[in-house]
């Protein structure tokens, strides 16, 4: 075995040293019945060459990556500058553990600190943690945190949340005994905020929401009274959009895949989690802080750990331990590579191209945009004949990768397709879409 350096001769010496006759004797404490019951997998070992060949072949079976994606819904086909992968792949970053020994983990810790800062800058918030698993668990943890603070047993949730985020939130809330009440949406695609539910610990909104539509957060916070405002958002869009923090949100979460991560069939992802300083003691997850060493040199360390499971055990603010550290590092390098200017540029490219396509499609006979509120880079289209399946098939037949109409139907918007446009889509591709849809059926 090439990952096991010891030779048989070494093993014999070691066994002699510990006074055991065989390797089997090292397992004398495992009940014999358990040993006897063991069954192998029937799996022969393969060489590196064979494994690489097998998996390369399997990768090619996936046609998704060779198509032109118009899919969004939380995961987007963004361009990642090459330098990001090269730097993030350095083995000192990849093969390190959680920075429990800060003196030899300043690389990881400094990046954590930079990441927290960038997340706060993006979202307009005061403190952020070093990451959660994904946007969905970040949102679920936000609801649990709000419930710990306000203890009303009830959280109001926008009906136009991404389905995958809603599902995870539901699981966590069910176990914690938190009642979720729906906030319906109005014809514009925005949440109906005219009548806010009473007695809630928090209101959960998503902006841009599952229809791509931007919610109207202006003045909302002051109408919520004691209830916390939780907003789930699209971090890359913050290059062009006013961040939720500017509207007084108490907790802001988001899916950070858009910040330099592969789509990877949905994982690993990156949960962003930010809040206000006053809620520090209720923050879930790890955080790095700045301090000095005994010689007065600036350094970074994990801190505020009394919130965490290894100290507070069942009273911890979360059970999270392993998080998405390396994804956070990748996002940090991505943001550093773009800078504020590049981030604005890429966000505007998304915005302009999506609006170019949406405007052109809306002008076609037989198609309309389902919602008319402002949107960022995805929108929902409905063919006037109601046959979204046919529309889907025509785009797929031309090499595009399109979401099934079932995704919108699940949110109560039947016979419609959601289309996302990123900076990677060219005008030629967008014009081709218009041509396909405008052509004879």
């Amino acid at each position: 075995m090439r990952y096991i350096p010891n030779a048989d001769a070494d093993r014999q010496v070691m066994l002699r040293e510990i006074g055991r006759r065989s390797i089997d004797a090292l397992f004398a404490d495992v009940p014999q019945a358990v040993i006897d019951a063991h069954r192998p997998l029937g799996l022969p070992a393969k060489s590196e060459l064979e494994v690489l060949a097998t998996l390369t072949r399997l990768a090619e079976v996936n046609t998704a990556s060779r198509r032109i994606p118009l899919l969004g819904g939380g995961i987007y086909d963004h361009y990642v500058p090459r330098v990001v992968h090269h730097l993030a792949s350095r083995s000192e970053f990849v093969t390190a553990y959680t920075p429990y020994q800060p003196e030899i983990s300043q690389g990881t810790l400094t990046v954590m600190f930079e990441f927290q800062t960038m997340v706060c800058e993006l979202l307009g918030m005061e403190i952020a943690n070093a990451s959660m698993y994904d946007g969905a668990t970040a949102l679920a943890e936000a609801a649990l945190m709000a419930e710990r603070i306000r203890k009303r047993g009830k959280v109001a949730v926008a009906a136009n949340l991404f389905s995958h985020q809603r599902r995870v939130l539901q699981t966590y809330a069910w176990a914690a005994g938190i009642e979720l009440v729906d906030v319906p949406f109005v014809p514009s695609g925005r949440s109906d905020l005219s009548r806010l539910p009473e007695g809630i610990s928090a209101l959960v909104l998503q902006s841009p929401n599952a229809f791509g539509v931007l919610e109207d957060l202006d003045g909302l916070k002051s109408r919520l009274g004691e209830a916390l405002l939780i907003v789930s958002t699209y971090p890359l869009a913050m290059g062009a959009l006013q961040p939720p923090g500017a509207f007084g949100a108490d907790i802001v979460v988001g899916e950070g895949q858009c910040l330099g991560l592969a789509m990877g069939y949905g994982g690993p992802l990156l949960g962003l989690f930010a809040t206000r300083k006053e809620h520090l003691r209720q923050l879930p997850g790890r955080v790095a802080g700045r301090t000095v060493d005994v010689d007065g040199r600036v350094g970074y360390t994990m801190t505020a750990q009394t919130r965490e499971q290894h100290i507070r055990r069942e009273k911890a603010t979360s059970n999270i331990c392993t998080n998405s550290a390396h994804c956070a590092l990748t996002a940090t390098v991505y943001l550093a590579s773009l800078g504020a200017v590049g981030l604005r540029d890429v966000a505007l490219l998304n915005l302009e191209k999506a609006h170019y396509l949406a405007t052109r499609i809306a002008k076609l006979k037989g198609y309309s945009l389902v919602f008319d509120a402002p949107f960022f880079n995805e929108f929902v289209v409905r063919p006037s004949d109601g046959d979204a399946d046919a529309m889907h098939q025509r785009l797929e037949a031309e090499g595009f990768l399109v979401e099934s109409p079932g995704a919108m139907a699940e949110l109560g918007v039947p016979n419609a397709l959601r289309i996302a446009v990123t900076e990677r889509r060219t005008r030629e591709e967008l014009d081709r879409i218009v041509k396909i849809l405008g052509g004879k059926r």
Partner: protein
Amino acid sequence: MRTIFEQGPSGAAEGIFPACDVPAQGAAAWLGRDLARSEAPRIPNVSETTVARHYTRLSKLNYGVDDGIYPLGSCTMKYNPKLNEDVAALPGFADAHPGAEEVHVQGCLEFLYELTRLLEGIAGLPGVTLQPVAGAHGELTGMFLFRKHFELRGDTGRQRILLPDSAHGTNPASAAVAGFSVTQIPSNACGTVDLEALRAELDDTVAGIMLTVPNTLGIFETDILEITRAVHDAGGLCYFDGANLNSFLGRARPGDMGADAFHFNLHKTLSTPHGGGGPGAGAVAVSERLVDLLPVPRVVKRGDRYALDWDRPKSIGSVHSFYGNVLVALKAYAYILQLGDEGLRAVSDNAVLNANYLQERLKRTYALPYDRLCKHEFVLTSEGLADGVTTLDVAKRLIDYGVHPPTVYFPLIVHEALMIEPTETESKEELDRFAEILERIAAEAREHPDRLHEAPTRAPVRRLDQTAAARNPVFTFPFEENAASAP
């Protein structure tokens, strides 16, 4: 340490993205003034050279498995094969959108399906979900499954989870997030679960027990069959924390020990890297009675096609946005394929041999509170080494010798604990070198304790002021302060 925020503006991101090829109108035109960003985030605009040098310099301040032995107990810091990284970067996998229809992602679904079957085989249990993305997430999923199991049976009085006092902190925290209360079971003189104390707690308020096998002292629960039988007889379920699977991989199966739910740490046992704290993957295997409760969607095979099955009415729902950390699972899959049955068994053989060899040598210098056959790890104490010398001092002195310290101050039942897990990927030569350093430090503790107290002196920074960090939290770069002090 200078951060990216302290690198002078040296350029901008011009040239990464093409100019806009559609008629542009600007954010305010499309969105209105209120929704368009009014103030840019303070992310510096620097050249690619600056970015490359900054993060390369930071990387050199880290210690990784590729630098040398990383004997963190409970963490299984084994070598991460490079093949895994390349496989996960194959565009067919890396660029697959999770919303793509099944027909376009048959390759992803096939490997997820096949890996699921392999993990079921390793666990000796009939169902596996790949959705949880970390060990603690696996525990939480297990606790959700327990809750659902009793809810479906109408047995809602079972609100207590039992755990040994040597448990990882994630265990009680996971139980609590899933809405359970926690009762601690003391360990006996051998460091294993006190069977009588356990029996005394078992009644119809107990939902189950969470065990780590072998436990966090590296000791196998020799009474494991009695423990799981007692819990089952009392109507409870058994959760196994799989952090220590490296000690019996290919030799024994949790399913044969009575586990109802068991999580794998793919990032420990199955060689995927830790990345400075994540991402991991925490696949959960379950017994027959919990299979229908597993998270949706499940990957299934229909004829020769693979599909996602959402129609699982008894399911707890979802615990992750999509299908778990797919690219991490892919690395673990590549690893299992390379190892085969023989290789899997060689992992635990050598992990346990290495640990016992080190334990035997080091117990001559450091006290070993539980002196018995260990599995893949063991726990020493610095108590009695020398007056005024703590485990923290020993750990920091190891840094001066260029070695990563073991896990310290855990498990909580051993004072001044040093928890050492060498893994199978270290050679005898490396183990001898590590032991020699620890022995030299023990001698220094008596003869030159100041060297330990002052350590580390050869690291990028010396001991950090943890008290100041906690009293005056600075979690984000102080832009204002920096601007004020600028020349």
